[in-house]
């Protein structure tokens, strides 16, 4: 396999060819990969990539024969090859369906059988003449793509791109909910057939870039990466295309500097690297994002718990105007002085706490009072609900309420109150505070 700068007959440098090929790859397999991932048909894509191989080999033989007979110019005619590949791919899909209708074998076994038997056929066929260029489909060859290959890739990619753009809504509906598609009057069988044909085409394109086995890396990995980054389908398609192109370009450039070996594996690993990056850093679904979210939430919960305990202390002492002592607070939270100070500072920084008398006395600010009253109210309403409606054991109620009180929104609270008939006290007899009322201070 020659190095990265094999020149094509068009006069473009090998690098440019490789880049254009990446573009084609991105469009074709990036777009369809989105559907494959959402339809959970990764194995189906894998089957197609193996099933088209005998078609590719046959296409080479046919094309070579046609060239010798003078019917076509090029011994490696892209149209002939694509056509034979399509026939093989569709044949594979048909066999899978027929096996499904006539035997008890499950889908996974059917796909595996067609995948391997067809591929074996391809290898056997290959042995009879070893037409040059087939290797490119086995291992991928972005580095050594010539003009003919490029024509094939661009052509297939163009067809796929246009078709997906035109039919994206019907394809989406059919992929997501076939029943509804029938309902809307879509020709489901034709659409599914079209999808299979388009998928076969993208598989052919991807094969040329990364080889038979790694087609799945191009079809699935970038689309899965996109899936982690967004909830919206058009964006997912666009991102999938982008990531495929990035992986392909990156892989080609990298592999040129590492070794002469085909770029396929490097491209696949670039795609995986992008996936790993998204897995960790994706805005909402990535590990880092979820960690920060959880941490933020834990902090909020801790803050609210502290407020709640201060409220309880104040309540026990009859809401004295001069506030609670730090000592009682320490006892309530079961902390030492250092721990207590940390928590109090947290509240002070949040503007919920005012410290008087040289720091010895704790008084809630307006804001602090509102927040504390809200949390306590949630907690007590919830306890009431659990005891009355859900037949909770007395010793369980407190733990659950501890967690849920932080999650109840205004709407849920109003519903709870209504369900319970606007109660004034909780199961233990403590009053249920109204956050809208001003802070209570009794004069001492």
């Amino acid at each position, binding site marked *: 396999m020659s190095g990265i700068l094999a020149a094509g007959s068009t006069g473009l440098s090998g690098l440019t060819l490789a880049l254009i090929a990446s573009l084609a790859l991105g469009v074709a397999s990036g777009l369809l990969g989105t559907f494959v991932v959402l339809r959970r048909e990764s194995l189906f894509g894998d089957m197609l990539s193996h099933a088209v191989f005998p078609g590719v080999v046959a296409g080479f033989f046919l094309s070579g024969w046609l060239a010798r007979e003078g019917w076509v110019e090029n011994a490696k005619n892209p149209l002939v090859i694509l056509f034979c590949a399509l026939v093989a791919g569709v044949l594979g899909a048909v066999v899978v369906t027929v096996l499904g209708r006539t035997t*008890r074998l499950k889908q996974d076994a059917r796909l595996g059988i067609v995948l*391997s*038997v067809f591929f*074996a056929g391809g290898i056997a066929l290959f042995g009879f003449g070893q037409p040059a260029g087939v290797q490119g489909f086995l291992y991928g060859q972005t580095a050594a793509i010539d003009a003919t290959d490029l024509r094939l890739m661009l052509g297939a990619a163009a067809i796929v791109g246009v078709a997906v753009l035109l039919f994206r809504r019907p394809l989406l509906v059919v992929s997501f909910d076939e029943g509804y598609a029938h309902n809307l009057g879509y020709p489901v069988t034709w659409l599914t057939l079209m999808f299979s044909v388009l998928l076969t085409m993208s598989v052919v394109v991807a094969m040329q870039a990364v080889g038979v086995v790694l087609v799945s890396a191009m079809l699935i990995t970038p689309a899965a990466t996109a899936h982690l980054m967004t909830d919206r389908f058009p964006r997912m398609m666009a991102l999938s295309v982008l990531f495929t192109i990035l992986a392909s370009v990156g892989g080609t450039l990298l592999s040129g500097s590492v070794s002469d070996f085909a770029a396929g594996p490097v491209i696949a690993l670039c795609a995986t690297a992008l996936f790993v990056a998204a897995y960790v850093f994706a805005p909402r679904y990535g590990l880092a994002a979820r960690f920060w979210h959880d941490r933020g939430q834990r902090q909020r919960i801790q803050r609210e718990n502290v407020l709640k305990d201060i409220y309880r202390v104040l309540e026990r002492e009859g809401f004295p105007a001069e506030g609670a002592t730090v000592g009682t607070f320490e006892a309530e939270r079961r902390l030492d002085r250092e721990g207590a100070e940390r928590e109090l500072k947290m509240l002070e920084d949040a503007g919920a706490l005012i410290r008087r008398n040289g720091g010895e006395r704790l008084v809630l600010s307006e804001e602090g009072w509102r927040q504390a009253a809200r949390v306590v109210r949630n907690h007590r309403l919830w306890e009431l609900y659990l005891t009355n409606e859900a037949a909770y054991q007395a010793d369980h109620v407190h733990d659950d309420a501890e967690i849920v009180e932080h999650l109840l929104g205004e709407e849920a609270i109003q519903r709870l109150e209504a369900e319970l008939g606007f109660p004034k006290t909780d199961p233990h007899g403590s009053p249920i505070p109204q956050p809208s009322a001003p802070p209570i201070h009794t004069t001492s």
Partner: protein
Amino acid sequence: MDLLAATDIIIPTKLLVWFGLACFFTALGCSQVGTFLVMRKMSLVGDAISHSVLPGIVLAFLVVGTLDSPWLLIGAGLSGVLATLLIELIHYRSRIKQDAAIGISFTSLFAIGVLLIGIYAKSVDLDPDCVIFGQVEYLQGYPRVEWWGVEFPRPLVSFAVVGVSATVVVAVLYRILLVSSFDPSLAASYGYFPAVVQLVLMGLTSFVVVSAFQAVGAILVIALLILPGATAYLCANRLPMILLLAGVHALLSSVGGVWLALSLGINTGAAVVLAGGGLFTLAWLFGPVDGVVLRVWLRRPGRDCS
């Protein structure tokens, strides 16, 4: 005197026996383990494992320098376990579904394996084509051992060990595998914990895949795993018979395939798989349980279209 060489007729009998035995032992082990993969609808996982063990095998090969070493098994096993862990990691903790997780996992591992081969191929005697095409033919190059006056290449012994021991293990664990494949809840109630059984099955798969790799190449391993079981499933109604028929399939496809390969000059691995596919087609047409021809002939009701 070499008995086999003396009996060469149309094709070299020696090669037929060697390659045939190599493929048979490999296929035997795969057929027994693979039947349970089919029963559990885990063909995809089997395919993934067969690709995922490549980096482990390559690394082990780079260290020990020969394919005839137990280290390859260990490398494969570790690689297979890594693949399973990756799949769980991706799929369980994010919104990526299992099929995509499997795809991401095995393609990455396979890519690493191919890359390793590509980088080190020149410094070590490892042909990247072996990965795709298998290399039963290379058996000829290995040192020989002698048994009962007949010569065998040494790797044949390890093939035999793997194939036979896999079969024995499946036989011993038959009840556990049967119940946990058929009814995981009942199995759990008997103490056959599904997670453990799954892990054992994955381990067994990695174990038999190593030989299969060398016989038919990475891509066709899945054929050795599921064709025998699938074919037998079309012919029998009870699991013990299916396992037996799968073994028969392994024998026939190995012998038939090797014979085809030697007479027509095609790749051995491909020939074995094609022979297996031929048997499958026969079973599809004439199988006593599901055979199409039989059904039409007797006008038996077919299964529901689904």
